[in-house]
């Protein structure tokens, strides 16, 4: 992460990491998750789902901070994030 002024305790702060899950068949391709992800994690996938929409795909997986914004802005219950460590279990 880039700071304009590095916090004094920057080395102690652990940024939460997330993993995004996409339920491609529910997606209607509105692009809200892509446009409003604060970390620019997502992009439009070139593939189509069965209904003919382009779902999102992950472009910069390591940047996801598990903020859930993609999950709560999605009108179609088609994307969500989980904490990276939790997902390994």
């Amino acid at each position, binding site marked *: 992460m880039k700071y304009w002024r590095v916090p004094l305790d920057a080395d102690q702060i652990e940024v939460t990491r997330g993993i995004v899950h996409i339920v491609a068949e529910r997606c*209607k391709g509105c692009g809200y998750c892509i446009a409003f992800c604060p970390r620019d994690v997502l992009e439009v996938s070139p593939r189509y789902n069965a209904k003919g929409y382009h779902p999102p795909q992950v472009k910069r997986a390591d940047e996801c901070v598990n903020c859930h914004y993609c999950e709560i*802005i999605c009108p179609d219950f088609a994307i969500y994030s989980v904490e990276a460590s939790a997902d390994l279990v």
Partner: protein
Amino acid sequence: MNKTKERNEHPLDELLRTDRIPHIWCPGCGIGTAFSASLVAMKTSAIDLQKTVMVSGIGCSGRGAGYIKLDSYHTTHGRAIPFATGMKLANPELNVVVFSGDGDLFAIGGNHFIHAARRNIDLTVVCVNNFNYGMTGGQAAATTPCNARTTTTPRGNPETPFNLPFMAFAAGASYVARWTILHTRDLTKSVEEALLRRGFSFIEVLAPCPTSYGRRNKQKPLDTLKAYQERTVIKHACHPAEVQLDFERGITLGKFFDLERPTFLDMYDRTCRPQERIEKSEAV
């Protein structure tokens, strides 16, 4: 390394009738986000979901009741509030949530709204305001902004829309807030608060209807969300008479009013069912 996973479950699936998903709402329609925020609020408020019901009227927004996996009722047009009122009075321990559209709640159902607010019936009313009758092809509603184009106002709407928070406040609501679907965290928190308040709570949610309204007003869904980002100002406790809804001058969001007063049932019990009278009738 590909960290995306294709999965078929979603954290809200437990509250969704997943056999009906994908829902009927168009790509970019804001109703889904308003609905999703309401479901999250129901979960996080920790209310007893077995004693929670959702009531909707008719319209695209009115389809909400059909997607929640709780007791829910899809009533006739404009009648979500009287139906919900009856349920609450017959079974006061229920948490009753009304989820419906601006046309349903404020045009055909307008009188029910003001009287339920006046009586302070203990309901949580979430109104998806997309400025038109989406379902029937985009006719002008009581909420259509002045000059906006709809199928029934092809030269622009000559009328002035209702200020919904002001109307709710003036009629007697206990809790009044307005958000957009972009402000989904604030919206969720508001619905959660409203669920826990006693009395008539009203939350207006501004949402794009790209198919019927956006198309005629040259607003692509992402443009509408950008406008929500750029033109909105959060002013908690702003007097409802002063809240604005103008895509040029600004849109006021926030929690405008939150003050508990006796509910209809409190007043009814006090007036018509005083304890001594009940005891007397039981003694007979």
